[in-house]
């Protein structure tokens, strides 16, 4: 993504409560007009975040970024607190309102939490904001005492005049500081003097998340609020043909049926009545033009598209002549399936449409988009729409979309009360905005010593960027589709990476925890493993020899190899696989996975070792947690994740047929961090991306089978009894009971693919 200038300009505004309201602004990302700029000293620059210091000394960080588990509600306050000289737990957080002008993420020019960008985007701006505020508070104190500011020290929200030990709190100083001019320059701390950044400070959101008080979008309660649940056309593009309204209305608690052209909602006193009502509706659908499409049709379209060249994203040397001179050519086709996000909190949105205003409560990664869609649907001017953000019960890119907000507003327009629209899990799985299906063709040429001399990679799939941020889609280049492929660090003289844009209208597709890289890293790191095998070399040694120009990548590879005891023999049936990742996130990762294939062809992941160099670290414990998280998410999709279509309908619906990793299947995960002072890299998504290739390569090591099409293990097929409902007397849900109710049936076709590689001499 475009990185605009990072020079910040700070303005001070007199806060209503007599406090200090400080906004920092990013030159280049500004937009005209805002509440803040009217009072700002230099109109034309727009603040993108605010800090409020009240007369009570309370420091409020109005959070532009959404908390979805990745820890920004801790890391962002830490950045501020470090320079402001307060303890992080002295900072109160407020979800920012929807406003691109004030709260844009500088990487995107809009209020967006995604692409593992929060720490990268706010690392310096938040520190600068804190440092500026501190300098002004110190200046205000010094002026009160008529002493040199240099003789004063700020610590834990108090300014002390060191020689006389007089002190004043930030609360007392806030109003005085607000009257002072903003310093032109502030000096940020030398990282070696950090006392907070780089430490495993406790997460600020943990206490509310262990006692039930944390408020997610789904927890919104309003006076007179009704609950709705919805069924949208099971086939994209389909319409409602008919419903049995009377049967639904007969369900006690059902208040209203809302019929849209492509969906029906039942509005009720509570979710149970809404669900019962929806089931009673007996909706008939006109499936529309996609009614006959199934997954093989989509794959066929992609395969055909892969025969034509695409837009070149990188070209080094002359691959054609390099292939001509190669001793051996290796070719492969890789495929990755549609994937659902399956956030733990199903999609939901609460809306109150009044005659002249609209209020929305939800959890969103793009609050200003949520506001814009509500304005568009209601026809109200933007300023008449207020959107309240909440904690997100998982984002993973799903909440970068606002389809569920659009739909909820369409429903709420017809309801004379605030209405909370809650999707069932089935609706959530079947109406996702899916990770696209990608189809990749790769070829490489090896010299007689087995060293690659040519590499070509053709990626076929949609251009999400063209839909989502069209202003970033230039010259037909989708930076996301090729992310993780175009940066190939391996020292190969001739490289070509292409993207063939191929849109499939049958499913909505979008971002999914590192979409481009998650796909490309699997493909690239599996194929490089194939080359190592073709060269009859050890996978780690083969990579090492090609990473001489990338010391950071080499260092994480060596670290992962060492910590995993690479090369040490394993019992029969087990294997280790390695993967290396570098992409636009700016982080370097290397991972070693140890897997076992059981007698029943069940893949079990025993251990993951991940070495991470993400540059400057704000909170190492959160970085580790994000890697642990990414790995688990990555294992789920690599082993089982697959959304399939039959006659236009998504075949999966809930956790019984969209399998995700559980506690009893989770491996030991060891994360090793490299500490340095490089620029911070993203960390929310890389752990997911780097996992699938390590698992695939480990599977190869364990079995000799190369799997070029995810998921590695065909999904769990439910063959047990229809009912999974735990009765009251059954108590908890032991693993054995789970296993006995679901006969694990493995489709072995994935393990019977052609030989490891196709060698053409």
């Amino acid at each position, binding site marked *: 993504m475009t990185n605009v200038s990072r020079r910040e300009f700070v303005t001070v505004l007199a806060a209503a409560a007599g406090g200090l309201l400080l906004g920092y602004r990013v030159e280049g990302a500004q937009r005209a007009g805002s509440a803040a700029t009217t009072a700002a000293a230099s109109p034309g620059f727009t603040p993108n975040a605010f800090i409020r210091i009240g007369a009570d000394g309370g420091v409020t960080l109005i959070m532009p970024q959404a908390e979805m588990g990745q820890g920004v509600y801790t890391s962002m306050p830490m950045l501020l607190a470090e320079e402001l000289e307060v303890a992080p737990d002295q900072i109160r957080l407020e979800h920012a309102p929807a406003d691109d002008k004030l709260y844009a993420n500088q990487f995107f020019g809009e209020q967006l939490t995604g692409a593992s960008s929060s720490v990268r985007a706010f690392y310096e701006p938040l520190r600068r904001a804190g440092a500026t505020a501190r300098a002004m508070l110190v200046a205000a104190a010094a002026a009160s005492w008529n002493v040199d500011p240099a003789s004063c020290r700020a610590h834990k929200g108090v300014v002390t005049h060191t020689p006389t030990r007089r002190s004043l709190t930030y609360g007392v100083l806030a109003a005085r500081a607000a009257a002072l001019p903003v310093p032109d320059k502030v000096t940020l701390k030398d990282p070696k003097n950090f006392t907070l950044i780089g430490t495993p400070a406790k997460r600020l959101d*943990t*206490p509310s998340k262990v006692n039930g008080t944390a408020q997610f979008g789904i927890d919104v309660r309003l006076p007179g609020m009704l609950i709705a649940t919805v069924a949208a056309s099971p086939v994209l593009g389909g319409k409602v043909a008919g419903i049995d309204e009377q049967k639904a209305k007969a369900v006690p608690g059902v208040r209203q049926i809302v019929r849209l052209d492509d969906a029906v909602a039942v509005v009720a006193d509570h979710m149970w009545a809404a669900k019962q009502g929806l089931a009673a509706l007996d909706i008939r659908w006109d499936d529309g033009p996609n009614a006959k499409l199934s997954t093989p049709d989509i794959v066929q379209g992609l395969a055909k598209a892969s025969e034509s060249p695409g837009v070149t994203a990188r070209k080094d040397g002359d691959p054609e002549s390099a292939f001509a001179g190669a001793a051996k050519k290796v070719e492969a086709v890789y495929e990755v399936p549609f994937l659902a996000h*399956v*956030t*733990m909190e199903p999609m939901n949105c609460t809306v109150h449409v009044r005659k002249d205003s609209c209020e929305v409560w939800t959890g969103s990664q793009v609050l200003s988009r949520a506001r814009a869609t509500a304005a568009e649907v209601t026809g109200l001017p933007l300023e008449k729409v207020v959107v309240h953000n909440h*904690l997100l019960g998982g984002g993973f890119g799903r909440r970068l979309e606002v389809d569920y907000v659009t739909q909820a507003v369409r429903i709420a327009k017809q309801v004379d009360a605030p209405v909370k629209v809650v999707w069932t899990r089935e609706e959530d799985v079947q109406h996702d905005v899916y990770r696209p299906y990608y189809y990749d063709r790769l070829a490489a040429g090896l010299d007689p010593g087995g060293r690659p001399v040519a590499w070509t990679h053709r990626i076929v799939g949609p251009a999400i960027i063209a839909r989502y941020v069209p202003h970033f889609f230039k010259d037909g280049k989708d930076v996301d589709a090729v992310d993780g492929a175009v940066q190939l660090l391996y020292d190969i003289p001739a490289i070509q990476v292409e993207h063939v844009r191929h849109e499939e209208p049958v499913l909505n597709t979008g971002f999914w925890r590192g979409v481009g890289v998650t796909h490309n890293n699997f493909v690239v790191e599996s194929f490089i493993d194939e080359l190592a095998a073709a060269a009859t070399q050890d996978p780690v040694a083969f990579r090492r020899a090609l990473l001489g120009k990338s010391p950071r990548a080499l260092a994480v590879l060596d670290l992962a190899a060492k910590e995993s005891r690479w090369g040490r023999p394993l019992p029969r049936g087990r294997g280790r696989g390695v993967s290396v990742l570098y992409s636009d996130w700016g982080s370097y990762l290397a991972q070693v996975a140890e897997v076992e294939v059981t007698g029943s062809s069940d893949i079990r992941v025993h251990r993951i070792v991940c070495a991470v160099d993400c540059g400057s670290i704000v909170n190492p414990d959160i970085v580790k947690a994000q890697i642990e998280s990414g790995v*688990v998410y990555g294992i789920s999709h690599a082993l089982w994740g697959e959304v399939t279509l039959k006659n236009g309908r998504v075949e999966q619906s809930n956790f019984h047929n969209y399998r995700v990793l559980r506690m009893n299947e989770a491996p030991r995960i060891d994360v090793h961090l490299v500490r340095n002072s490089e620029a911070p890299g993203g960390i929310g998504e890389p752990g997911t991306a780097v996992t699938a290739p390590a698992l695939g390569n480990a599977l190869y090591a364990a079995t000799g089978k190369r799997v070029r099409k995810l998921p590695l293990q065909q999904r769990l097929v439910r063959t047990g009894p229809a009912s999974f409902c*735990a009765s009251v007397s059954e108590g908890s849900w*032991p693993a054995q009971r789970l296993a006995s109710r679901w006969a694990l049936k493995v489709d072995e076709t994935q393990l019977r693919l052609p030989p490891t590689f196709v060698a053409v001499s």
Partner: protein
Amino acid sequence: MVALRINGKSYQVDVPSDMPVLWVLRDVLGMTGTKFGCGMALCGACTVQLDGQAVRSCVTPVSAAAGKAITTIEAIGATPVGKKVQAAWIALDVPQCGYCQSGQIMSASALLARNARPTDADIDEAMAGNICRCGTYGRVRAAIKQAAQGASVSGKGARS
């Protein structure tokens, strides 16, 4: 009318007898700490305790809960085990998005209340029904062990 006892308090709710406890808690009584995840007892986000036993409230009809003590995340901290579990969760910063954590804590507390020294296999058995998409499993396991250590009075029994 159904008479319920939740977190030590009595309630009379006018709901259908087949209505799952989950929706009574969330939509009728406004206790939103218990989460909706799947509606099929597959994910554990809705776990509450019924007479100390972990159950999936999304498939437990309110009629089956009548006459029993329902404990939810809002009050689990008032039990000795629940308090230790919450403390361990905070000490290890277990939650990420946090959405599944009410259910994780309710299952873990039920486990520790009946088994003060759970082995890894015991933890697997008790916790396999609680899905976490943020992948906090390693920390959940470690926190259960830490809470178990805190719960120990006799010091007997081998730690797994």
